[in-house]
Structures are given as C-alpha cells and as structure tokens.
C-alpha cells in the first residue's frame, strides 16, 4: 500500500457553516480532533459561508461526524476513502505506463 496504508478510511468532507454559531462549533471540533484543513489554509478563516474542506482521520471520523450531526451542521463527503483514492491514482498511472 502507498504511504503504508496510513490514509485507509480517512475522509475529506466539505462544510459551509450557515451561521457564526456553526462556524464556532466547527472551529472547536477542528481543534479538538486535530484535523487536516485542506481549505481554507487556516481555521482562523472559517466563518459563516466559508467553504471548508477537512481531511478527517479514520479513527476519529465516526465521532466527529456524530458531533456534526448532533450540532445539525450539514456536510458532504468529497472523498470517502483517501487511501482508495490514492491507490486508484497509482493504478491508473501503472496502466498508462503499461500502455
């Protein structure tokens, strides 16, 4: 596996806080779960309406998503499994090289 399979089960989700309250909750969750922010580049930018893409590790994702649902914060899953996405990219490359 690429990167020793470290991204297995990791997800990337998108959230767009609809209120400052939601933005505040989101900031707290990001601090608490030490997530990897893809966009924007810093949590300090997150406010109402900010498109926020977050890479969440497999081991925290269930609790984190539960938090979000409890806080009634909508989210969409951009990448369901980062490891699979990485492996897929790699296999496509191998196919290309063979071709």
């Amino acid at each position, binding site marked *: 596996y690429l990167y020793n399979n470290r991204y297995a089960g990791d997800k990337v989700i998108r959230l767009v806080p609809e209120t400052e309250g939601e933005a505040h909750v989101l900031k707290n969750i990001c601090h608490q779960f030490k997530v990897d922010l893809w966009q924007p580049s810093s949590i300090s930018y997150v406010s109402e309406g900010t498109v926020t893409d977050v890479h969440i590790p497999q081991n925290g994702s269930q609790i984190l998503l539960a938090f979000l649902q409890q806080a009634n914060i909508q989210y969409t899953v951009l990448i369901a499994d980062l490891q699979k996405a990485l492996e897929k990219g790699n296999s496509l490359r191998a196919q*290309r090289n063979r071709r």
Partner: protein
Amino acid sequence: SLPGYSYEVYHSLEEIQNWMHYLNKTHPGLIHMFSIGKSYEGRSLFILKLGRRSRAYKRAVWIDCGIHAREWIGPAFCQWFVKEALQTYRSDPAMRKMLNHLYFYIMPVFNVDGYHFSWTNDRFWRKTRSRNSRFRCRGVDANRNWKVNWCDEGASFHPCDDTYCGPFPESEPEVKAVAHFLRKRRKHIRAYLSFHAYAQMLLYPYSYKYAKIPNFSCVESAAYNAVIALHSAYGVRYRHGPASSTLYVSSGSSMDWAYKNGIPYAFAFELRDTGHFGFLLPESLIKPTCTETMLAVKNITMHLLKKC
C-alpha cells in the same frame, strides 16, 4: 525532451531534477540550469533560466511552483511550461517573442524537502521540513515566511499550525535563497508568478491588507484578460482579484513580498480544482489544467511586453 518523460503524470523530485539536468544538456541555447542554494535538508534549489541567450539587456519573469508540498499540480505546470516553451519556440510567434525578449526563471519545486516528504511519508504535507529544537512540530509555511507584514493576520506563531510563519522572516533557507536571488535582480524582473492549488483563482496584491495597489488598473486588466484566455480552453472559470478580498487576508506571502520589492506584476495562481479532488487532482487532468493555465501565463507575459 527526456525520452519517455511524460508531462501528464506526477514526477518525484528525483525525476524532476534528472529532467532538468537533461534539458540543460540538450538545450544550451535556450536553457541554463543553476542552483541558488540549499534547502534545510541540504537539497539543491535548482532554477532553469529559459530564453534565448543574448548579450543585450533582457527583462525577466520569475515562476515558482510547489511552495506548498502537497499541491502537486504546481510542479506539473512548471514542467509543462518549459516543455511547451521548448516545443513551440520555433512554431509559435508569441512564444518566440517571449523567449527572445524575456528570460524566464523557473523553479519547478520551491519546497524540495516538503515535496519529497509528500512522496515518501505524508501525501498531504504542506510546510517545509525545518526543525525547531524547542517544539516537536516541524516545518514552516513558506508562504507566510516572507518579510512583508510578517506573521500578522492569517499567519500563526504556533509551530504546529499549518500557517506557521516561522521563528523570524526568511528563516527558511529556501525562502532566504529565493528572496536573495530576486532582490539582486529585481530591476530586471517584471513579473513574479507563483503556482498553488486548489481554488481556481488568479490573485494579485495585496494579501495582507484591503487596499488597492498603485498600478491596479494595469494589473487588473492583465488578470482579467488572463482568466478570459484560460476560460477559452475548456470553459473553466477562474475568479480573479486582490488576494485579500478574493481569497482571504494573509501576511508574509511571496506575492506581496515580490510586489513590495518593486516587481510590478505579482500573481498567485490557485490551479484546479475547487474541491472535487482537491490535492488529489488526477493525472488525467494535468493536461487540460496545464493547457488552460499556459494560455493565462502567455497572456500575462504578452501584456508585460506592451506598455500599459
């Protein structure tokens, strides 16, 4: 080009450096490769000087890619630009004019340590790989480390943050080396272009404040025409404007530093996409992304060659 070298796949740092050495050997009339220093981990910071050699005075454009390690489409574009320049120098009048009248200093991988680390350990690493004995976290955000409103809004003093500005401005040897190079040549350099991902934007100063730059109308028209040219390829829309209002306020960026140091046109590209794949932009999208971005860069360059 390097036999069998594909510009439609992502390449490791070693492959990119071999590619640079090869072009340096095979295109002495148009390409000169040199190093401007060493990275924190001791890797060479290679630059390609692209353009027809001439004794006459020539202005220059600086292009850097890969300030943030995980943004792989940046280095891919830098390589694509060089390949297109070499392949179309004779056939494309615009490219011939660009390379006859200007030099292009191209840094395919700015953050060489971080890029290598993103291939070997952490695909989503962003920062450099410097150490600070007092903290366990490594790396500085090389786009918050420049001496322009350093470590103000949009940057963090905390070494574990992704936007860590560093212990002091130009603390990162990579930033220091590029700043030193640009400072020495700033009277010659007309434009500074830095390539990032992802957001599909073309940004110009200021990042660190909401204010208009003195040559706003010229820069705005160059940016506007550039995103129109980019859109003409595949219909992809890029937003453009001052970074502070188009994206967010951030201090210590290379683009603001370049502008503050007298380079009249400073841009930061945020390439594809807008989040569908994010940093994992598939290799199948390298070609369309680089093709459209090429149109924007050529448009900006032709703008430089005219009076505004």
